[in-house]
């Protein structure tokens, strides 16, 4: 008898069928990864185990935890199981904790509601548990509030409160997706240790095959609410019986066919000794102002047709640098020139029209009340004589077909498109005035792997067609590796290493680059797995 046994689980919410005939099991001490793209039903499977579904949800089948059928239990009994027998860790550590309660109180609460432990005793246990997850009380007192901790530290608190009662099963729903690679590696290690130390079963939900490939004992691949394939990790990667599993694997490690670098030494963008300071709040009324140097003496050049990557963890100054390059914020030192002219917040529209940007969030970066035609023609206001009439329509149609949409899409509203299509629209908006340089700011980070692969191919195609120059900013090293010619590694406001992408990845020089590359999860080498299988 497995610890968790899900049999023929069907879930519908209203008329929508969310899960179809899902069966899987998790043993004590076993790590089972559920993977799939958004809408595959992986999170809903977790919520069905927690029995925290919307009121309109209708379930059939069986979910058995240590022999008890969860579907037949009443709400009061379920409350005694949640947090006690099943713990859960969520994706967003920034918002998963109550901002007005101390971390000690939040961890101790799990203990207090499930046992008669006196409060002082519960606080002591909470302190022990926080110390176990890497937050010792001498450096992280229980009286800290969540906003005083970093994302990785908050995720440790969430883990501590989930395992405070030493549950039999821990469910982790994309626990590291919102974290930096080095933090991600630490959290994954912590989860692995806890599983073996407490003998818990771990249901690990993630969209990232690379994350689970060296961690999970078994992998369950889901699509459209169904389990398409499951098996022992190495065997699954070796065989990949279902075409969807293969597609997912191929998309995760997608290599784009980047055209050769056009020769032409003319620099498009030159950043020389750029410095960007932020004033910190005064500590005392007449104390001298303190500054935070977000970008510190950064210099690099992007030549015509060159594709440059910029990698670094959150807070390293990537976004600040982007805003300075776009001329949205001024510099405190050094200079940025585009096509030989200085970039600043006061620069003229003609110069601005040469620099366009594609942002990360395909949902938030458009006005939902405007039609696509209006959205993508927004950069036209930078031109002295914006095209009108048939010329304008032709430009719109051209931009949309360039990014793989149709001219008819111009009359639609943004909610009619999927996330991937929206990102195509964002690219069309950047392309429509033929900019010299496009900045992709985490432009594929919010997309599913298969969509991400398509967008990366699109960028490579456009690069071939228009000999685009771009700066590709990302925290995802594998993406940067496949889509850029040259890469800059940024840490604490400084470029610590730069060079030809392949060289930097194959032979990193700076210690930080080495750490980053070592921490980045990698997909298993299938040919290697196959060879080993024959031995």
């Amino acid at each position: 008898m497995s610890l968790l046994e899900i049999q023929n689980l069907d879930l519908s919410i209203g008329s929508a069928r969310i899960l179809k005939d899902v069966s899987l099991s998790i043993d004590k001490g076993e790590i089972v990864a559920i993977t799939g793209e958004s809408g595959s039903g992986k999170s809903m499977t977790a919520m069905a185990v927690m029995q925290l579904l919307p009121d309109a949800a209708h379930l059939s089948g069986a979910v058995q935890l240590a022999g008890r059928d969860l579907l037949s239990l009443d709400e009061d009994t379920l409350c005694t199981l949640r947090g006690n027998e099943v713990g859960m860790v969520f994706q967003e550590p920034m918002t998963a904790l109550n901002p007005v309660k101390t971390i000690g109180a939040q961890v101790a609460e799990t203990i207090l509601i499930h046992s008669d432990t006196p409060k002082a005793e519960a606080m002591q246990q909470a302190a022990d548990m926080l110390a176990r997850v890497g937050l010792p009380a001498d450096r992280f007192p229980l009286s800290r509030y969540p906003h005083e901790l970093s994302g990785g530290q908050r995720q440790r608190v969430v883990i501590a409160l989930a395992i405070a009662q030493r549950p039999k099963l821990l469910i982790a729903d994309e626990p590291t997706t919102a974290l930096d690679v080095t933090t991600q590696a630490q959290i994954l290690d912590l989860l692995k240790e806890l599983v073996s130390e407490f003998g818990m079963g771990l249901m690990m939900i993630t969209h990232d095959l690379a994350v689970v490939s060296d961690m999970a004992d078994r992998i369950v691949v889901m699509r459209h609410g169904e389990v398409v394939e499951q098996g022992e990790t190495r065997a699954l990667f070796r065989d990949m019986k279902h075409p969807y599993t293969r597609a997912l694997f191929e998309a995760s490690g997608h290599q784009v066919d980047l055209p050769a670098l056009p020769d032409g030494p003319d620099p498009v963008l030159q950043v020389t000794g750029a410095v960007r300071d932020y004033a910190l709040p005064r500590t005392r009324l007449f104390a001298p102002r303190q500054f935070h140097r977000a970008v510190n003496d950064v210099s690099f050049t992007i030549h015509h047709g060159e594709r440059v990557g910029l990698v670094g963890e959150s807070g390293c100054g990537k976004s600040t640098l982007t805003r300075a390059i776009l001329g949205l914020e001024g510099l405190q030192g050094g200079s940025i020139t585009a096509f030989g002219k200085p970039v600043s917040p006061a620069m003229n529209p003609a110069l601005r029209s040469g620099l366009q940007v594609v942002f990360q969030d395909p949902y938030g970066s458009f006005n939902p009340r405007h039609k696509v035609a209006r959205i993508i023609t927004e950069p036209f206001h930078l031109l002295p004589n914006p095209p009108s009439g048939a010329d304008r329509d032709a430009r719109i149609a051209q931009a949309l077909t360039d990014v793989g949409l149709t001219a008819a899409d111009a009359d639609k509203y943004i909610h009619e498109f999927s996330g991937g299509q929206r990102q195509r629209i964002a690219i069309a908006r950047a392309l429509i005035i033929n900019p010299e340089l496009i900045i992709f700011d985490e432009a594929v980070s919010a997309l599913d792997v298969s969509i991400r692969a398509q967008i990366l191919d699109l960028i490579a195609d456009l690069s071939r067609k228009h000999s685009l120059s771009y700066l590709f900013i990302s925290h995802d090293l594998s993406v940067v590796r496949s889509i850029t010619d040259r890469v800059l590694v940024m840490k604490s406001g400084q470029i610590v290493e730069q060079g030809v992408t392949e060289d930097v990845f194959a032979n990193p020089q700076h210690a930080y680059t080495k750490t980053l590359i070592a921490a980045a999860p990698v997909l298993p080498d299938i040919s290697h797995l196959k060879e080993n299988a024959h031995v």
Partner: protein
Amino acid sequence: MLRYSLKRLLSLVISLAVASLVIFAVIEVAPGDPASFMLGINAQPDTVAALRAELGLDMSKPQRYVAWVTGMLSGDFGTSYTYRTPVAQMIADRMWISLPLAIYALTLSTLIAFPAGIYAASRRGKGGDVAVMGATQLGIAVPNFWFAMMLVLIFAINLRWFSAGGFPGWDKGFWLSMKALTLPAISLALPQSAILARVMRSSLLDILGEDFMRTARAKGLTRRQALWRHGLRNALIPVLTIIGLQFSFLLAGGIIIEQVFFLPGLGRLIFQAISARDLIVVESVVMLLVFSVILVNFLVDLAYAAVDPRLRSRT
């Protein structure tokens, strides 16, 4: 927390100083000479001049400003031009009605709004929610003086439980006075509680959708426990803002209700003072109201910090 409070206190003092300057300037530019107004059109010029000297109107503007402010600081608000009585005394008399009335009304409003808002939020979309929302819609739409008249009609004229208006004075007994303030307080409180209940509901609903509420449920808290332990305090922040605004409004904005119930409150005083061009009274009452608004904002700021630790550490 101490540093935060001191900073808020400093901003309170600065706001008061600026407000006093603005009020003084506005009243100064208002046309009409109080002395000639008081003595009528047939007054002799030297009589007017004598009165101006007596009232201090012959001093330079800066001198008068300083005299006004220092006077207020020592509790001397000057003498009313029309009634020839100390303004401080007039305001104090009215304050003893308006302040208890505002506190009474605000207490009622909060007592009605909190349970109603929490109830509606916890039954979102169900019958109870729809009923509460319908009632609040009505509460906002119907003017409070109409409520007041209906209350008088039912409880004073038909049932004879309350008197239809007037105020006996606190020296006649606490409960008697509270009784006289009950109908006015209810009519002031009803529309306010309707607004407050809606704010409470929507703020709670926002919080119920937050990730940390899901974390609370995953810990094993029941829906109700999660709402009380994690939801309410977070939902309180916008509600406190509205309560602060409502108190300021209730203190001076009750003029129509004061008229309906024949209550000699601050609202009526300022109305009479303006009609009589009694500038010194207007100045003082307005300054007092500004002070109360700023003070309430200060208290709301402190309440924010008590509720939300993120504000405490931000210095």
